Each structure stands twice: as structure tokens, then as C-alpha cells.
């Protein structure tokens, strides 16, 4: 009589165990690393005498519109909704300039075209922060490169460092090519009538 062999306990491959453990731990870490306390963020000295006096990120940021990247805050939405109202100038006589004009940049192969909104940028920044040293103030006059951007040039001077990171492709590449007007192959102002409108906020 043949006795069937005792079924051997199935052993999960070691790499699978490691992968599952890593993914699980990564998910836990992602949940836990939203706004670490300053004393545990790896840059502040937990023994420093100032640490107890500084504002904690969670205290300030948890009340702002939530996001999935960067500071986990939709900063422009925070401005637009009025939940924050940071000062635009501190020196008397500074001209505060806001430009409401979108630029469509469509010379980028098969990716959706880029819509660059001047309004959202000039709510935070002055014209001189980008013009003329980063970008010429003429639609179509600039050459863009994702390689340069990923290396911290052009848009990457801020995006990937303080403003939303470069993982968020479709926030810039937001215009499907099917929606582009004909001949919109170069960068062009999307609303040219607004092109000269510089207004105080």
C-alpha cells in the first residue's frame, strides 16, 4: 500500500517575504512620515534648546488644503481659499505684480502639452524671479528640457525642491493634445488678450 507522502509545508520564497515586508513597512512609514515632529526629522538637534519653541509642521500644515506630495499642502489653493494670506511685500513702495495669463507649451512630443499659468506663479513670485535669467519673456523664445528640469534648472529650480515635486507630471502636462488648437506647436499665450494685464492681487 502506498502512503501518500506527507504534504510538505509550502515555504514562501524568501524574496517574496522580503518584498511583502518592505511594501508593508513602506506604507506604514509613508503614513508616519507626514509631518514628522521636528525632534525626529533627522535634521533638527533634539537636544537643542530651541526645539521646544519652534512651530511643528503638523500644527501649521494640517489645517491647509491637503495634497499627496511635497509638503502635503495644495499651496495655491490655500492662497485662493484665503486660509492663508501671506504678505506680498515688506518694503514701502514695492510694486506687487500679478499677471493673469496662461502659456501653452506644446513642443513636447507625445506628452500632453504644458499649461503654464502665470497667475498661480505670480501670486507667489515676482516677474524678476524668472525673467529674464531663467526664461525669456517671449512666448516661443525658450527651449525647455526635462533633463535640465530634473537637474534643477529651469522649472526644476523650484519644482522638486520647494514647490510640488517632479513626480506630478500631469499637473504641468495637463492639456491633452486633442484639445490643442491647430498650429499650436510652439509655446503661445492661451489667452492673448490678457497678455498685458499686470494687476495688484
Amino acid at each position: 500500500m502506498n502512503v501518500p507522502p506527507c504534504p510538505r509545508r509550502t515555504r514562501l520564497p524568501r524574496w517574496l517575504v522580503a518584498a511583502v515586508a518592505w511594501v508593508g513597512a513602506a506604507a506604514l512609514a509613508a503614513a508616519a512620515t507626514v509631518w514628522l515632529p521636528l525632534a525626529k526629522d533627522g535634521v533638527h538637534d533634539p537636544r537643542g534648546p530651541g526645539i521646544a519653541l519652534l512651530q511643528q509642521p503638523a500644527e501649521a500644515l494640517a489645517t491647509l488644503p491637503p495634497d499627496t506630495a511635497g509638503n502635503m499642502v495644495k499651496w495655491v489653493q490655500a492662497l485662493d481659499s484665503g486660509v492663508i494670506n501671506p504678505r506680498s511685500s515688506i518694503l514701502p513702495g514695492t510694486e506687487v505684480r500679478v499677471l493673469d495669463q496662461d502659456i501653452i507649451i506644446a513642443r513636447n512630443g507625445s506628452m500632453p502639452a504644458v499649461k503654464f499659468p502665470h497667475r498661480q506663479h505670480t501670486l507667489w513670485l515676482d516677474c524678476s524671479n524668472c525673467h529674464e535669467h531663467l526664461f525669456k519673456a517671449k512666448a516661443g523664445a525658450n527651449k525647455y528640457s526635462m533633463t535640465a528640469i530634473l537637474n534643477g534648472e529651469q522649472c526644476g529650480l523650484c519644482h522638486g525642491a520647494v514647490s510640488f515635486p517632479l513626480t506630478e507630471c500631469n499637473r504641468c502636462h495637463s492639456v491633452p493634445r486633442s484639445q490643442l488648437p491647430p498650429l499650436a506647436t510652439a509655446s503661445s499665450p492661451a489667452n492673448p488678450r490678457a497678455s498685458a494685464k499686470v494687476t495688484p492681487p
Partner: protein
Amino acid sequence: MKRALFAAALLLLPALLQAEYGDVVLNRHSDKQGVRPVVFPHWFHRIRFRCKVCHSELGFKMRAGSNEVLMSDIIDGKFCGMCHNGQIAWGPERCDLCHSGLKGLPSGITGGAQTSGPGRW
């Protein structure tokens, strides 16, 4: 199994110790002068001031490492000293509130941008 968990913990260590996005460490002079490096939190400042205040009016260039920020200038009311003067914000005598970083930190932008860029920071 234990080894796998240990490996996972090792891999995640940098993620668990992460400054807030946009934090800048200034340590060109601090370590040499025997004080803690400065940790500049962008998130804290942009709730109160738009980028243009510091990066246009105050003259901070937008590339981390391209500004030579000296205490003597701050005390004279330049750079941070434009606000950190005891009127708009705490004054330069409150050393430990800005010089709050761990000794030996490299200067530059920190906070775990999710790309390899910006490479020159």
C-alpha cells in the same frame, strides 16, 4: 524572516528620518564656528510671506548655496535680519531658534523631493 524585516528597516531608515519638504540646511560657517547649523523651513515662512518677499525684495537667490549669509549682515538688517530684528520676528540674539540643526549636516536643500533632482542643490 527576521533578516528580511531588518533589511526593510534599513532601507526605510532614510524615509523615517526626513526633514520637511523644502527645508534648507545652512552650514557653510556654523560647524566651523562651533554653533549648530541653521535649518530654514520654507513651509513655515511661506504661510506668512510670499516667495517674492525674500527672493525679490530681500535678495535671496533661489539656488541653495548661492547666498553668502553672514551673521554680521543679519545683525545689520540684511537677509534674515530684514524681519528677524525683534520686530517682525525674533531677533538675532535668539541663536538657538535658527541654529537648531544637528552638527555635521551638509548644506543644501533637504526634505525628500521624490526625484533625483534638483541635482545642483
